[in-house]
């Protein structure tokens, strides 16, 4: 008799097998996200260090990016190219001067009530990013301009932190059975000092980089999990945000289309067929749209065929002809490509502020060494692991590789059309392809593993992470401090 209530109680309290399984699944799901408990605070603190150490206005075009958002707050509309506010410019100049923005010996006339310029006008960019920045700025509109700038930087800090979480998620999706790599990739992205420096600035690149990372997550989810609505919405939304933030995001279209293709067609494609279609397609397009002509200096270059030139001048308005002529003039561009390689490579990895702060030439050479070694390692690793990786993993890595190649090509494209002889063209900085920073980090980790024999392979991610961590530590604790605060 005494067992009666107990048995009733037990029967009530004991969960059904289904319920237990559901709880276990939920617990496992929560545990899966456990690394974020320290990864997110770490990213936030790391970004915060960069945010507070770098004095106001000391990032690429920060004054004019800020001005764009500020004008939206004050005028309640998207400003035109000519709009400005003399008082705001005066306050900004006063703050720039106070924070030693200008080199020694250069002093501003702060008594001028109508200062003309505070940098390169950024209002040719789409307004999305600046509208986002304007949201927190409205809350501090009456506070000093330094406070407003730091508030604007805070939005970048949040996006930087989220990118690290996205990087972690991308890695979990691609290599679900590699817990070490799942942490090494986001940590390496976190420790990439040039990226952290850029991602805590007021600059529309920040939103493009965030959109690119989100797009990559959407793409790997599509490739690994098939045409799922959530993945599709994520990838499409991220692509949309990227495209309406800055034109540098246009390279993201290719990974997006590829991911859709691979999500739809989940069986292997024959390599020769893919290569054949690509080669024939490229040749046919080139033959249909381009012709060989003689340049003014006598060299043979490519030019648009008349029908395409007509289409471009009447509809596309991209000055494609001068661009194609410029790209195909190898004699003129040969030296510039060398310059582009040097400037874009160093500014991608080890340049800070306005690209004027360097760690030292040793860091340039360390990065050259690592990148060359990883390129070799990537080939070795690709050959060694070709049978061990699943189709979706292989496709994800192809996606990363294609994104990185496109990023490099976009830098070359940005160099053209070259100005008239005698004028020095603008050499694009590496920050324009921070959109592909996550795929680059992925390839570095993979390539680095390829350099080690199988029995040492498990140690290799720790070594490369250590190198990244040490360089980052040197940057924030010494390089930036020495530059901005005169000691270190």
């Amino acid at each position, binding site marked *: 008799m005494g067992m009666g209530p107990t048995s009733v109680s037990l029967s009530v309290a004991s969960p059904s097998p289904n319920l237990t399984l559901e709880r276990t699944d939920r617990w496992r799901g929560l545990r899966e996200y456990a*690394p974020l408990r*320290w*990864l997110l*605070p*770490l990213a936030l*603190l*790391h970004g*915060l*260090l960069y945010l*507070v*150490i770098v*004095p106001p206005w000391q990032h690429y075009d920060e004054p004019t990016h800020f001005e764009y958002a500020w004008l939206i707050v004050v005028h309640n509309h998207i400003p035109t190219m000519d709009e400005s506010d003399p008082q705001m410019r005066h306050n900004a100049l006063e703050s720039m*001067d*106070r*924070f*030693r923005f*200008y*080199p*020694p010996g*250069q*002093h501003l006339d702060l008594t001028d009530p109508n200062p003309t310029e505070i940098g390169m006008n950024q209002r040719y960019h789409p307004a999305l990013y600046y509208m986002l920045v304007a949201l927190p700025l409205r809350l501090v509109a009456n*506070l*000093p301009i*330094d*406070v407003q700038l*730091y508030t604007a930087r805070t939005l970048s800090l949040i996006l930087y932190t989220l990118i690290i979480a996205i990087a972690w998620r991308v890695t979990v999706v691609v290599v679900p059975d590699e*817990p*070490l790599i799942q*942490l*090494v990739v986001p*940590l390496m992205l976190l420790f990439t000092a040039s990226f952290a420096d850029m991602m805590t600035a007021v600059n529309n690149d920040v939103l493009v980089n965030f959109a690119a990372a989100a797009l990559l997550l959407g793409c790997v989810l599509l490739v690994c999990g098939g045409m799922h609505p959530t993945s599709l919405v994520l990838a499409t939304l991220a692509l949309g945000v990227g495209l309406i933030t800055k034109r540098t995001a246009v390279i993201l279209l290719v990974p997006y289309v590829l991911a859709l293709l691979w999500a739809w067609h989940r069986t292997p494609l024959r390599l020769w067929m893919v290569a054949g279609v690509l080669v024939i397609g490229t040749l046919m397009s080139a033959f249909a749209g381009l012709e060989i002509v003689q340049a003014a200096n006598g060299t043979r270059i490519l030019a648009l065929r008349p029908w395409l030139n007509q289409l471009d001048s009447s509809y596309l308005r991209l000055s494609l002809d001068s661009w194609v002529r410029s790209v195909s003039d190898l004699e003129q561009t040969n030296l510039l490509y060398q310059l582009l390689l040097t400037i874009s490579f160093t500014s991608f990895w080890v340049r800070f502020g306005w690209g004027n702060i360097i760690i030292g030439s040793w860091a340039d050479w360390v990065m050259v060494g690592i990148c060359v070694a990883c390129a070799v390692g990537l080939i070795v690793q690709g050959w060694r692991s070709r049978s061990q990786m699943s189709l979706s993993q292989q496709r994800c890595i192809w996606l990363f590789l294609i994104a990185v190649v496109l990023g490099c090509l976009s830098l070359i494209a940005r160099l053209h059309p070259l100005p008239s002889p005698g004028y020095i063209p603008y050499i694009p900085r590496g920050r324009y392809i921070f959109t592909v920073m996550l795929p680059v980090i992925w390839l570095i980790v993979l390539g680095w593993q390829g350099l080690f024999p199988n029995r040492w392979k*498990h140690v290799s991610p*720790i070594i490369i*992470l250590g190198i990244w961590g040490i360089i980052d530590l040197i940057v924030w*604790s010494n390089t930036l*401090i020495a530059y901005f*605060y*005169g*000691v*270190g």
Partner: protein
Amino acid sequence: MSTTATNITVRTSRWLTALIGALCITALSMITTLDGGIAPPTPTDMPITLAGITTIEQTFTITRPDLVGLAIQIHPATQIVPDLRIPLHLRYADGPPIDLVSENLSVQAATNGVIAIRFPPLMAVHDLRVPTTTLTFILDIPQVQPNTGLTFTARENHQTPDTLTIDGRVLTNRELVFAPIYQHRWADSLWPISAMARGKPGVLGWPPLYALLAYIYLIVLGVGIANLRRIFLSQG
């Protein structure tokens, strides 16, 4: 003790250690000392009687950041001077006539023949706004009875180009006996937190914040490294 209780104890003690560390970092970052004292008397010292003087101007060159005060030698009055206050203006020597500091020196507050004023740290060194690191302080001497005996001291100076001007007349190779007072933060020898905070708004202007932030970051980094190690060992 059960495993759960042990875990809780370990976790609590770690949190406490981290918290104590944070308090120590904050406390150490706040320690400052003052450097600067009046040099001992020399045979060339000569008194400057304040009676009949309107202004005294003295230029000097800042040698370090964080100038926080000035100490001026004064000989006390032989007669009682009720609460005499001497206005002092500190300006850039060659810059715009803006007062960096404007204070009143209270003669009654002089101790051991030295009258001192303190002000928030000045950042003239490393501040590119400053056309020069030479400052000048101007003393507007109020009317003093001739027989009060209140005097400053001047002495020969051949080492520096600093000038002493009394009522518009430059006294070559002479300077007022005074000393700039600099603040020295101990933590700056390790990491220049005072420079990092200088001029920044709100909490960003509080030097210990930077040390604290770096400390917390390194603690969380330590947690991350511990997690990596655990995963690495479980894989190995």
